[in-house]
């Protein structure tokens, strides 16, 4: 049976990662498939994993009483889902729902955190990549907050 190593290596998130380091985390990885409409995680649940989306579409949602679920962002092939595993209290702040059938690699948070403490080089490589993802996400969210298409007369 093939390990997940080549699948991890081809994901954009791990581009240019030293194969020796990649080997360290293969043990934390599992292959997952979510059906269309299935919740990947729920708000306030334990953030035990993060996901490298290989194929599919995921909606980040928040539920407001009287308004129903509001989609904040949709993620697609190559995107990263979830970073609450990085910082305590390791809890999700949104719902994530597969809009269509979605294939992903799940990486276990505790497994990764332990390995990062043992191998700082792995820790640094992961942080670099997450910093990039988070900055991009914040820039995009900033534009959403600005409500640029809104009518700002009032």
């Amino acid at each position, binding site marked *: 049976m093939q390990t997940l190593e080549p699948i991890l290596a081809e994901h954009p998130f791990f581009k240019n990662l030293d194969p020796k380091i990649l080997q360290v985390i293969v043990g934390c990885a599992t292959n997952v498939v979510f059906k269309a409409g299935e919740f990947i995680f729920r708000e306030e649940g334990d953030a035990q994993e993060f996901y490298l989306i290989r194929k599919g579409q995921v909606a980040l949602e928040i539920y407001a009483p009287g308004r129903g679920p509001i989609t904040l962002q949709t993620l697609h092939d190559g995107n990263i889902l979830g970073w609450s595993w990085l910082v305590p209290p390791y809890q999700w702040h949104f719902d994530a729902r597969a809009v269509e059938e979605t294939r992903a690699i799940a990486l276990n948070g505790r497994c990764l955190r332990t390995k990062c403490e043992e191998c700082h080089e792995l820790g640094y490589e992961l942080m670099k990549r997450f910093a990039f993802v988070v900055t991009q996400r914040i820039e995009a969210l900033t534009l959403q907050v600005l409500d640029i298409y809104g*009518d*700002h*007369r*009032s």
Partner: protein
Amino acid sequence: MSEADQKGHPQTVFEAEGLQSLVETLARKGYQVIGPTVRDKAIVYAEMESAKDLPVGWTDRQDGGTYRLEKRQDEALFGYVVGPHSWKQFLHPPKARLCQAKRKGDCFEPRGEDREIPKRAFLGVRACELAAIAVQDRVLLQGTYTDPVYQARRGNIVLIAVNCTQAGGTCFCTSMGTGPKVTSGYDLALTEVLEDGKHYFVAQAGTEPGEEILREIPHREAQDPERQIAESLIAKAAGNMGRTLEAEGVHDLLVANLEHKRWDEAAKRCLTCGNCTLVCPTCFCTTVEDSTDLTGEQAERWRRWDSCFTLDFSYIHGGSVRPSARGRYRQWMTHKLATWHDQFGTSGCVGCGRCITWCPVGIDITEEARAIRETPVSQAAPSGKERSRANP
């Protein structure tokens, strides 16, 4: 030999009384004569009936935010410079109706405008003002679209220019290359000479109509000493300018210094009252206003002067693009001295000094340009108070 005989028009002389003859000749030829006159303690341009309407024996004292009339020791007819009026109010009027519409049920029927304007003679046009008229000709007649209001008025004008024999407190035409001597664009040019008890005008036509007018005034050929005195008076005016502005490179200077802190300092003083744009002879901005009468049966479209100093001027999407005084002052000055070149190939400033005189707080465009030139931002050190690697 000076440029005296350009285009073959000889220099002539007529006595001071000839001015009355000039006014009468113009009236007889069907021109409405507009010239300088004293009104409300200023010299303004208004319809004249006789040479006696001129500000005989008056002069003006001008400085930043200051304008006073004073009596002269002599009876000069043109012994002052420019006042709050410019000729633009006659060529590019403060209000003009563009068209009308009549309501017809649920629809409307547009109607055009009658553009008949009386023939006018402008008497006493200074070199800077001729330059300003040329600047407005370029803006309003030589673009992709011409302005029919300006066009209708411009064709019917006779220009009687006057060479300045003294400079004003805020004048800087020499810096802008527009005076004090008139060089083109006039029908008749006059230089007033009062000397040794004599009072006469050295006159030279610039066009055929100018020649025709001159023919009707008793005159004779100018003698060399008379020519020389006239030239020396103009030269004296050139040497006595109240202000100077280094025009060379001012475009690039301002464009490179849009974030200069001088703009903040000007903004602290500027009231954004727009006086400068009202008195400036080249400012051309207007706005369009549509209105209906009380019954709603008749609608009119009017155009009126506007100023980039108003908040509304750049209004878009619920706010002004230039909400601060700093933004608006910078817009006006960089347009006048810099971006005007990009748009029209000349400076927008003719050095008449009106904006300095009529600014209630005396902001001086020549001083602002000088201050920026002396400390350009491009040479400033990177921002941030004293940088140091050590902990002092």
